[in-house]
């Protein structure tokens, strides 16, 4: 019975994995082709005729690639940290306190995501310029924080809601203060939610293109997606460079994900939460 079920499970998972992996393998293989092979081959081939590290060498030599990595790591780490901290606080606040305007504020947070971002570029730039923050990482960090807070807050709000209030009350009767209760008792229980929210915020920032493109000018400030976007040129696309850079830029995320996934998928909170 279980076995039969698992066969189905494996079938579906394998099929989906195939659809995911094929393009990515193609991307890897393109990154290992030479540009003249890509441009002169009459038909697309899944594997390179001749494996070359030309693309990777170009990415490393032609561009300050490590500067891009450093910039991305800095901007995204800081914005993720701040955004998740703010959102966790807000999520708990909305879940535990009843106050006038609560519903309105929750809705306001959601609604901030509904304005087309095309319309945000220009006013954001003006705003940051007034604060002297255009062409700076700080400006970009601010925008990223504002960009992910809504989803993070609502997710955390949901996670806190699924944890019984009796837990807080018990802790407070035991003499814990509100903040103490929050940090020591409730927050650890939302670890899976907290980590998935963090991953969301991180990935969102790591892959963001338009804001980064508009708000940073100098090559020394550029983040990875902008650098990659600019590799797809208007007169000639060096597919091998582009794919090599894409591969390299997503590696850190993959490592991060593999490292964090065990924390939010191992059912560690299962027994502790009373519904």
């Amino acid at each position: 019975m279980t076995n039969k079920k698992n066969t189905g499970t494996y079938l579906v998972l394998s099929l989906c994995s195939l659809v995911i992996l094929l393009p990515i393998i193609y991307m890897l293989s393109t990154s290992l082709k030479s540009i003249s092979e890509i441009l002169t081959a009459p038909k697309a081939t899944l594997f390179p005729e001749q494996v070359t590290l030309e693309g990777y060498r170009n990415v490393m030599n032609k561009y300050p690639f490590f500067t891009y990595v450093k910039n991305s790591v800095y901007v995204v780490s800081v914005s993720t940290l701040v955004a998740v901290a703010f959102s966790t606080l807000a999520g708990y606040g909305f879940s535990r306190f009843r106050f006038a305007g609560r519903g309105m504020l929750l809705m306001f947070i959601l609604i901030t995501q509904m304005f087309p971002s095309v319309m945000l570029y220009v006013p954001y730039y003006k705003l940051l310029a007034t604060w002297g923050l255009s062409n700076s990482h700080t400006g970009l960090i601010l925008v990223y924080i504002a960009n992910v807070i809504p989803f993070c807050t609502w997710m955390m709000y949901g996670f806190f809601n699924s944890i019984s209030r009796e837990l807080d009350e018990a802790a407070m009767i035991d003499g814990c203060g509100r903040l103490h209760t929050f940090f020591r008792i409730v927050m650890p229980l939302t670890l899976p939610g907290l980590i998935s929210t963090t991953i969301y915020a991180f990935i969102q920032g790591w892959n963001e293109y338009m804001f980064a493109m508009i708000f940073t000018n100098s090559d020394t400030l550029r983040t990875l997606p902008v650098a990659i976007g600019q590799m797809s040129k208007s007169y000639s696309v060096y597919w091998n460079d582009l794919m090599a850079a894409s591969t390299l830029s997503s590696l850190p995320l993959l490592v991060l994900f593999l490292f964090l996934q065990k924390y939010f998928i191992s059912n560690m909170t299962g027994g502790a939460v009373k519904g």
Partner: protein
Amino acid sequence: MKKFLPVFLALVMLVSMTAVAAASEVVEILYLSSTILETPEGQYEAELIEKFNAEHPDIKVTVEGCAANDLNTKLVAMATANQLPAFVMGNETTMSALVDMDMVVPIEDLLDEEYIAGFVPANLAAYQIGDKHYGIPMFGGAQGIIYRKDVFEEKGLTEPKTWDEFVEVCKALTGDGKYGITLVGTKNSSGASRFQPIIHNFGCDEFYQDENGKWQTDIGSQKFTDALRAFTDLDVTYHVVPAGVVETGYPEAVALFTSGQASMIITGSNAIGAITTQVPELKGKLASMPNIPVERCVSMAGGFGFFVTTKDPAQQAAAVEYIKYFINTENSLNYAELTGRPPVRTEAMQSERVANMPEMAGFLKALENIWVSPTIEGYSEINDILGEAYQSVFTGQATVEEASARAGERAQAICDWANE
């Protein structure tokens, strides 16, 4: 983090103060460029800037790159916050947006008459609005057709002189999985600007002012319909174009050409540089010709210009110094040989080195009849209008007549908008 913030801020202040102190005699100018991201153009110019800065201790040019597709978006954002760089480079669309925002200095205020007279007139004409010019030509060029000389010789073909001959040549080149010509059929400026010379040459003026100064359009007229039919028939009727024309952007078209699947491509002369850098085997196998003549034979300007945006006289002078350096005879010839983008000064064009670039011949001939785009407010929508027209015919969504009528309506709306 918190602990380091004050230290960090103090450091930043210290650094910027010393920078200001040291810079009191150096004019620092910021330059926004899209070609700086291209290969081989970018590396050449980056090295040139370094050399320039070394030779001019009182000027420091800093270049920042921005993908051509994002340039307009970025300039608008910068302009609204009054944070434009000292000078930028771009095409006529960039210029007309900057002029509209009153953000660009006419070159008559920057250069003396004698120097201005030294430009190849066709290159300068593209930047004229009213009686002033707003761009200093950076490199010249006109659109034409690059073809595979070796394939033409192999099949005993010569350069076509009429549209019918052109169709015959295309047919002769098609077969065995190979095609006559690759067209850029995407719905953007890249595609539209390659269709535009065809409508011009069929005798259709996209926008013009009548005797009362009112804007009029020929789009949607019989001549436009004929041009649209001739263009789309290449794929729809004669099948001399590789599959997937509407998703073929410029880089894809170049790839079709380099892989030998197409023997002709409509492009600017710069493609020579891009192609031979990527596939060196094609060196010596390329040749060029002007667009196919019909009622007339004109070409779109294929050059780019520098636009000086700073209001500060010292910065203006520094920017002009660099621009003159970039386009001086020696540097512009080096640039031309590397990239296929011809010089803009008459003196440089008369150099033997230009004559020694045989693959450029067609483009140089095309330069003699440059089409100057009208400066009507809202002009840039033309790309979408033309793009929609040929795409809907290519994909069979509309007949040529329907597509032409729809394009006519949209073009008329632009006239109405501008006449308001």
